[in-house]
């Protein structure tokens, strides 16, 4: 009994934090009719869907001191399709500047969807525009990403090129969040801590592909986090939960977390991981407010191929 009490006191803070972060109640909107409208053969797709496959919407926000009242934009929106039977994963980055119908009404940039309607608004917008069904969502703030990566002891990445930014937002742990910093993430195989990893995935000024280049780097870091999770043990959960406190929200219930972690670590074939970025010819510039026009005729067949 004493041992149980000791164990309970070890895991209790983690459980409390996890209960707060997980199982967020979101009234998931049903897939929009557009999925039926655009899908070449909706019934065939549905029947071909592997058993147990599910789709998660990953949302990453600038939860820095520039924003008040929780009206956060999502700098990163990644649809992740996980098929346990084939151990395959597909990651599709949705450009934050995509000009599309918003679930809250009217047209706007994709990153406004979360700002106007929270997780439900973002999910509803993505479901309606892309004709996919989203099973769950995970939201993480900037500080949360830093803390997660630091809590797992950093990640190993082959950074693609020198990521140099003279006007990188200096908006975390500062009294003047509108300032700029200079960053230089040098290229090559290396071990990144949380701050360095955030710089790598967040910088976009010196990338000719701007948000698309950044999306590729974000997917790269997600895979590196997954790789590192192989080394974690159940006893690592309390420090991880402490790191994530208040920085992560998800609709995934606590009871499903262990199975999902085990599932994620069982995927070991890099060739079964598909990474998709909606650059040209799926989008092109010239939309209002410097945003991107979607080419739905190209996007939807691609989406339905990987997100049936």
């Amino acid at each position, binding site marked *: 009994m004493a041992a149980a009490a000791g164990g309970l006191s070890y895991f209790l803070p983690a459980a409390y934090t996890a209960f707060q972060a997980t199982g967020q109640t979101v009234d998931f909107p049903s897939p929009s009719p557009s999925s039926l409208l655009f899908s070449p053969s909706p019934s065939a797709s549905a029947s071909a869907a592997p058993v147990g496959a599910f789709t998660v919407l990953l949302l990453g926000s600038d939860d820095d001191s520039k924003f008040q009242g929780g009206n956060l934009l999502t700098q990163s929106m990644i649809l992740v399709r996980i098929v346990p039977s084939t151990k395959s994963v597909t990651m599709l980055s949705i450009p934050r500047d995509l000009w599309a119908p918003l679930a809250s009404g009217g047209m706007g940039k994709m990153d406004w969807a979360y700002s106007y309607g929270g997780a439900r608004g973002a999910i509803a917008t993505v479901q309606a525009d892309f004709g996919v069904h989203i099973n769950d969502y995970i939201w993480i703030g900037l500080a949360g990403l830093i803390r997660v990566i630091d809590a797992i002891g950093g990640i190993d990445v082959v950074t693609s090129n020198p*990521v140099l930014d003279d006007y990188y937002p200096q908006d975390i742990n500062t009294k003047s969040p509108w300032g700029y910093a200079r960053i230089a993430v040098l290229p090559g195989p290396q071990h990144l801590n949380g701050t360095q990893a955030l710089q790598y995935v967040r910088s976009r000024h010196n990338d000719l592909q701007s948000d698309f280049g950044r999306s590729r780097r974000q997917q790269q870091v997600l895979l590196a986090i997954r790789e590192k999770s192989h080394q974690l043990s159940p006893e*690592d959960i309390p420090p991880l939960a402490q790191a994530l406190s208040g920085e992560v929200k998800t609709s995934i219930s606590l009871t499903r977390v262990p199975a999902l972690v085990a599932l994620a670590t069982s995927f070991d074939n890099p060739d079964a991981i598909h990474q998709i970025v909606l650059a040209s010819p799926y989008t092109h510039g010239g939309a209002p407010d410097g945003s991107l026009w979607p080419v739905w005729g190209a996007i939807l067949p691609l989406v339905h191929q990987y997100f049936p």
Partner: protein
Amino acid sequence: MIPLLPKIALGAFLAVLMAVVGVSTYVYLGTRQSKVAAPAQLPTAAQPSPNAFRLPGTMILEQDGALFSLSAGRFHQLTGRAGWMQPSFTPGGNVLAVKQTGYYSDVWMLNRFGKKIRQLTNNAAPPRSYDTGDNHWAFYPRMTADGRTIFLSYDSPKFGYEVDLSIWAMPAGGNLRQGKVWTDEYDSPGYTGGDLQPIPVPGGVMFTRYDRTAEGGIISQVWFTSRAGTFGRAVTTPDEDCREPSLSPDGHSLAMICTYQKQVSNLVIAQYSNGRITGRQAVITNQLVAQPTWAPDGSGIAYLAPALAAAPFQLWFIPRAAYVKPSPSPAPSASAGASPVASPSPVPSPSPLVIKPIQITVNNGFDAVSTIAWAN
């Protein structure tokens, strides 16, 4: 019936026992945490074992913004944790190194004990500037064999958001204003990060160029150029995605890292002559390898790589025998009537000796984008 006093004693004993078991369980669970988040050990913390493998000469590496020397199997800390990185030895035995702050980085000359001799660049923005873009980066300084010129990567010129590094050369006794840009960022499409890590070689300089593929991705290639302002030529192909070149002491071999556009890296060696390479040989293929550096006596190659997947980088050494094949023994002369197809030998030939890399450090966390300096 248990008398009252023993009952109290038993109760107290059980309470203490429960507390001990509870606390022990808590502590035990804490000890079962994986060590993934444990901070890297200072290189100087490890006591050298008398039987440990010892590298020749003196090596300088960077961990967490401090420079450490490794000589005769023992680490010494040369500088404080102040953004020091990318050391290289000068022909005279001093050390060129970069000191990086939040906004800029400068090249310094230190003596081999880490004492500052001279600041070679001054890349901070003017005192009254409010534009972060007025600062500059200088990285990867390397002095030529004659001691007269220092090559480095420098982010000038730059325009607005476009910050790309170019290869510059400056007089060793002068400053960057007297320097000359060798590779112009306009040679490449721009917005890739530019040209990095120059190494002076006879007749020119080799460096890594970050370039854009037709599909929009970014790859790295090793380039050679013989004169300032000339376009130069690619030494490796875009598909190889190679970087971090290192020339052997005899000047006949080039070691480099090639990723083939994947999240793995391979240590590749090639024969080198006059700015061209031939005959690639992948020496390490199963680790995330970085910064290959030749031993000054040619006895092998040091590099950085994690010992476990996704862990901090350690120092490794691969002996020359692992990648230089022994000269073949004279082939037996073919006897008359012998079949041209080799017949099975009745005596099994000895299996070739496999020489594995040697892990030099265990719990450190060396910066894998910082060079390794190594000299006699």
